[in-house]
């Protein structure tokens, strides 16, 4: 099974990249990611000016992780050595850069190109402080930044966008028009992880970026939207814990993906495991390349006009599976589930066919056509 992909003209041994984060904070860290099998690494965000980093800056809850300030603590000059380190062990290195004007962005891009980066990822969507998400919410601004960088460098330019905007399709199109080679997304989402109610204080001292499984559905929608709106290759990011999630992204049009939170929480070894599982699934399903599955699920996405209203309702599929431990009756918002002589029943008059019970307990409920 060949896991390799061609992405923006870069030949990658597999589509799994490690996202811009502490996992790629320097040459040594990037080396670990490459040795764990990553198809490419994306540097921690390189800026023209190092700003003091607040500690602590990471916290997690059951759904994901909040970070504040993931910009590199290495000066622009230092990245020459760090990128070289990662390249030396055969890695593909994409430099993630951020700047607050198009000319500054183009300058940093030129520098990292000289340092040997194989591509750049323009971060037009940081959720920190007052960041530049405001700039990146306007197609004109996206165009201005991308255009200036594309003119300044020869390497491919990938544009990292945020879903926290009015219409992401317009932004992706603006990037495409300006000559971007790919779109990546999503960035983390502006968040406050929580409040310690005893102390009356937020868990981290400022707004941050939220990542992990909770943002995956948001990112899947982003991927599908960009796939439908543009012809650009897509790198999906957000909440990828297992091979399954990689396939979800691909079936919605992604060519590659980036992982971050799961590898931060579980270590670099998680990357290797994910790639192995991915390969196994592809083999088991007799696929030879990712092109065969890419965008497969997009056809099942319909607009409201296209969808037919079919007379579905729920029914009990197999109440033998009912261990009696769950309160199915009270879980139906329409009051359609009831028991008769200890057997589960669905009242066809009350059931509206919402489908939630069949989704939650597929062993017990199924959807049927109403007679």
């Amino acid at each position: 099974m060949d896991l390799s992909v061609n992405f923006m003209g870069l030949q990658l041994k597999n589509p799994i990249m490690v996202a811009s984060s502490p996992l790629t904070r320097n040459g040594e860290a990037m080396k670990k990611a490459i040795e764990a099998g990553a198809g490419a690494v994306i540097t921690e965000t390189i800026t023209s000016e190092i700003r003091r980093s607040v500690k602590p800056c990471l916290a997690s809850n059951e759904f994901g992780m909040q970070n504040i300030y993931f910009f590199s603590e290495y000066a622009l000059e230092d990245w020459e050595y760090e990128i070289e380190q990662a390249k030396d062990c055969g890695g593909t290195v994409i430099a993630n850069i951020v700047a607050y004007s198009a000319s500054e962005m183009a300058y940093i891009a030129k520098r990292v190109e000289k340092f040997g980066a194989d591509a750049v990822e323009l971060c037009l969507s940081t959720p920190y402080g007052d960041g530049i998400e405001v700039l990146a919410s306007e197609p004109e601004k996206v165009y201005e930044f991308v255009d200036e960088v594309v003119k300044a460098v020869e390497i491919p330019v990938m544009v990292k966008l945020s879903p926290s905007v009015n219409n992401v399709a317009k932004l992706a199109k603006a990037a495409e028009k300006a000559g971007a080679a790919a779109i990546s997304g999503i960035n983390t989402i502006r968040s406050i992880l929580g409040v310690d109610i005893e102390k009356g204080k937020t868990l981290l001292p400022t707004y941050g970026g939220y990542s992990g499984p909770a943002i995956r559905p948001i990112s899947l929608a982003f991927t599908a939207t960009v796939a439908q709106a543009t012809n650009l290759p897509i790198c999906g990011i957000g909440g990828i814990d297992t091979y399954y999630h990689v396939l979800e992204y691909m079936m919605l049009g992604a060519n590659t993906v980036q992982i971050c939170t799961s590898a931060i929480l579980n270590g670099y070894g998680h990357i290797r495991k994910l790639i192995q599982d991915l390969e196994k699934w592809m083999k088991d399903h007799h696929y030879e390349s990712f092109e065969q599955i890419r965008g497969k699920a997009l056809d099942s996405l319909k607009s409201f006009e296209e969808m037919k209203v079919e007379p579905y309702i729920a029914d009990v599929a197999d109440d033998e599976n009912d261990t009696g431990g769950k309160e199915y009756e009270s879980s139906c918002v329409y009051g359609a589930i009831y028991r008769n002589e200890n057997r589960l029943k669905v009242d066809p008059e009350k059931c509206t066919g919402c489908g939630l019970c069949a989704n939650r307990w597929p062993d017990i409920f199924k959807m049927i056509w109403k007679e």
Partner: protein
Amino acid sequence: MANIRDVAKKAGVSVATVSRVLNHPNTVSPTTMEYVLSVIKELNYTPNGLARSLALNKTNTIALLIPNILNPLYMEIAKGVEDVAHKKGYNTLLCNTEESQKKEADYIDMLIKRRVDGLILTASLLNKEEIQQIKKQDITLVMIGKNKNVKHGSVVFTDYMLGGYIATKHLIEIGYKRIAHISGAVHQIENQEKRAGYEKALKENNLPIDKRYIVEGNNEIEGGYLAAKKLLQLKCKPEAIFVANDLMAFGAIDAIKSEGLRIPEDIAIVGFDNIEMSALVEPKLTTVSQPAYKMGLLSARLLFDHIENGDDEEHVHQEIFLQPKLKVRKSCGHEERVREIFS
């Protein structure tokens, strides 16, 4: 003390080889290199910097010219320049021009004679002839802030007109009508631009431009103090003042307090520069931030791009624009301030 000949003799190589080990290591084989370096260490030999400069026609020195050494803004620029220069193994000479075109030209004359490898001019006042003079000497030049006499060259700049505009517009949006302006020394382009931005915002909002409300300061704390005193003597005092730099804003705050008035309740203030002190004064100063440290870093990077890569077009002419940004704190009287550590 050992000299280069002693090293060559002991190592059994030519003086030229020792020189190549020190200056062009890539032209020497690793074995020779390692051996020569061990001899250098053994004899405790340090190359003579002066002789080295003569031989290489390079002094590993750059110069940064700033208009006012007492203004912390320029210290932030200097730190940026020095951070990059040090990484590159260069010394940085700091020259204080005191906003005098003559002093600036004098310094440049001296620096050319000392053969510095590059010059960074901040808010330069040089005229066409003086700029031509530098270009003739083939010295690498980068500007911080535009000088209209330099048409073709590398520059890091911010938009002062936009800065003046957003500061004034912010005051208008809060609801002030009588907004005064304490300008910096008017012979500096940046101060003309800040004032133009101030006037543009007033015009756009149909507010009159009243000459009595525009007072020139001298860029320093005292200038701001005197200018504010002058404004306070007007029969119809301004409700708010946009001050062209933070130092003058400190002076203005002092003057307003000395008259028993409160900031921002009686008179609101917005400054320009966002020097570190502006977050420490009482009340904390709302100001337009120009990223001075970053300007220093980037100007030095442009300079070394040019020094290291020679005269090809890509490195001789590079323009980097940095966005001015409003930092909303307390002195403007804006109540819906969102508290953000990183903004």
